[in-house]
């Protein structure tokens, strides 16, 4: 297994953060509309966990999907264009923020109906096994990694998915990003089992990991992915904290400024930066340089989105059936 390139991870995390900051700005300017869920504060989970996947592995996620898409290597330009509702977007502007996807990257997309995608992910894992064992496709050795939030573990679909995944020993990693809130509802209000991985413990091995530490995240994700590839499902509960509102328009009545500030010490980017500096892998000056480069890249990303044309009105009628009726 390749050694983790912490500097590259740092850069990706900075890119995700900057992408999200630009989204917020463009939302304020009404160039982005609707519902926008930012990933600020959770970057190490995506970068650490998705970094443990190989090209043939699969990624399925929920609506807070910008960080996952970027960590999987999707180009930021079509993502921003999608947020602007432009024809050059990943979904030609039809989908918006919550439905990024890219088949070439085995990124099956973000899903906005909480909980529903766990079953889809499980079905993909089932078909990997089927293709290998029934159709004899020896190269089908991929693993599915399915992201979801703590809130999503309250619905029946969650239990249905972990139950069947265990029954058929499917190659799937369930990755719960426990950011302590389901929208405005704190963990202890929405569930009695606040150690989320324990909800799956009758079905599969699992553990709680520090999702703000990209190194630990990567290491435990590698373990989980290997287990899924060789034995069966594995459950990861990544502890993290969302530093922004649930969505860009969230007044955050459920927590105070002080609550948020108290958690800034856990900011995964600041933590990694300090670690890299301590290990002499990065200087303040180089960090500034990275910020500058990312900023420049993001300017081009926003410009691309701005200059892209709106979809043609006829696009409303495309991609409904295999052949138009």
């Amino acid at each position, binding site marked *: 297994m390749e050694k983790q390139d912490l500097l590259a991870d740092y850069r990706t995390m900075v890119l995700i953060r900057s992408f999200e900051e630009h989204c917020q700005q463009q939302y304020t300017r009404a160039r982005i509309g*609707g519902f926008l869920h930012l990933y600020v504060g959770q970057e190490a989970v995506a970068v650490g966990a998705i970094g443990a996947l190989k090209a043939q592995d699969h990624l399925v996620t929920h609506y807070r999907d910008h960080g996952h898409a970027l960590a999987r290597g999707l180009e930021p330009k079509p993502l921003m264009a999608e947020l602007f*509702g432009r024809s050059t977007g990943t979904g030609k502007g039809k989908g918006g923020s919550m*439905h990024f996807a890219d088949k070439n990257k085995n990124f099956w997309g973000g899903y*906005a109906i909480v909980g529903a995608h766990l079953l889809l992910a499980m079905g993909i894992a089932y078909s990997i096994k089927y293709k290998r064992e029934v159709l004899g496709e020896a190269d089908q050795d991929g693993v599915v990694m399915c992201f979801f939030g703590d809130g*999503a573990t309250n*619905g029946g679909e969650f239990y249905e998915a972990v139950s069947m995944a265990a029954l058929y020993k499917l190659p799937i990693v369930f990755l719960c990003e426990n950011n302590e809130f389901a929208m405005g509802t704190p963990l202890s209000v*929405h569930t009695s089992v606040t150690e989320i991985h324990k909800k799956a413990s009758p079905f599969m091995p699992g553990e709680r990991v520090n999702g703000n530490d990209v190194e630990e995240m990567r290491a435990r994700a590698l373990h989980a992915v290997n287990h899924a590839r060789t034995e069966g499902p594995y459950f990861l509960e990544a502890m993290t904290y969302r530093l922004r509102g649930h969505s860009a328009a969230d007044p955050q*009545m459920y927590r105070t400024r002080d609550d948020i500030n108290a958690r800034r010490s856990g900011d995964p980017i600041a933590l990694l930066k300090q670690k890299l500096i301590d290990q002499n892998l990065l200087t303040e000056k180089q960090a500034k340089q990275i910020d500058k480069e990312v900023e420049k890249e993001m300017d081009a990303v926003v410009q691309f989105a701005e200059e892209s044309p709106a*979809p043609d*009105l006829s696009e409303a009628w495309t991609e409904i059936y295999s052949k138009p009726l």
Partner: protein
Amino acid sequence: MAELNLLEAINQALDQAMANDERVYIIGEDVGQRGGVFRVTDGLHAKYGEKRVIDAPLAESIIIGSSIGAAMYGMRPIAEIQFADFIFPAFNQIISEAARMRYRSNNTWEVPLVIRAPYGGGIHGALYHSQSIEAFFTHIPGLKVVAPSTPYDAKAMLLAAIDDPDPVLFLEHKKCYRLIKGYVPDEHYTVPIGKADIAREGSDVSVITYGMMRHYAVEAAEMLAGEDINVEVVDLRSLVPLDRETIINSVKKTSKVLVLYEDNLFGGYGAEVAAIIAQDGFEYLDAPVQRLAGLDIPAMPYSTPLENEFLPTPSKIADTLRDLVNY
């Protein structure tokens, strides 16, 4: 009497119902401290406490299933589905249990449950935050379905729904929430469920509609007034039960009718209205019944021009009405 927007009128109705009857409680996602995503339940958690304004686990089947049981055992739950698009995990409970309970239990049990659900588009909500869901539920006898679109009606019909011994799906068009304002009496009052409202009197052509489309129809009517076209707008308000009499009276008066709704055209609620007019209003008609509705595509797209393409707008409505009066 105060000028309120639709959202404030609903909040006031909830507050009054909770003050009047301790059996009334609210359950939904983020309805407590956060006051709901749209802030409809703002202040109620502080006033009535967490036992009466419940931040439910994120599972619509819990919200609805538990409310049905509670309603059967004498409570008066008001369940909020955060966006109507998320009601489907609870579809089973609503259709299979709530709607049928009285029928299957020889009238032993009833389900005095109100389900509030913000629906509708035009807010860039895209595929999963814009849907109209009424056609799925109006199809099922045993449920009542209402869709008031003015602050006056919203307060009155919510209070009527809470008093109603049968399950009521209470649809709130989310674009109306802050946009539509009007005078609302301070006291407790109701409008009977099952009565339409004439939003605008006219003599040349009738628009039968509900929800945000009521306001667009009135706008279109005002555009046409300058062209000497006199449009009557009927706001159904209550979809089940349906006020057939008001519809047919309007058809008698104008002889031309447009059925307008935001949901997909095919198999939409307006198809039923059109069928009723064709059957009971045939001899009064001077033109075929027209329908204008959302596009028959899987969901409302995100991009602004595509979203506008999906939705009936005042100018599309006016164009359709011009063609209709010239038939």
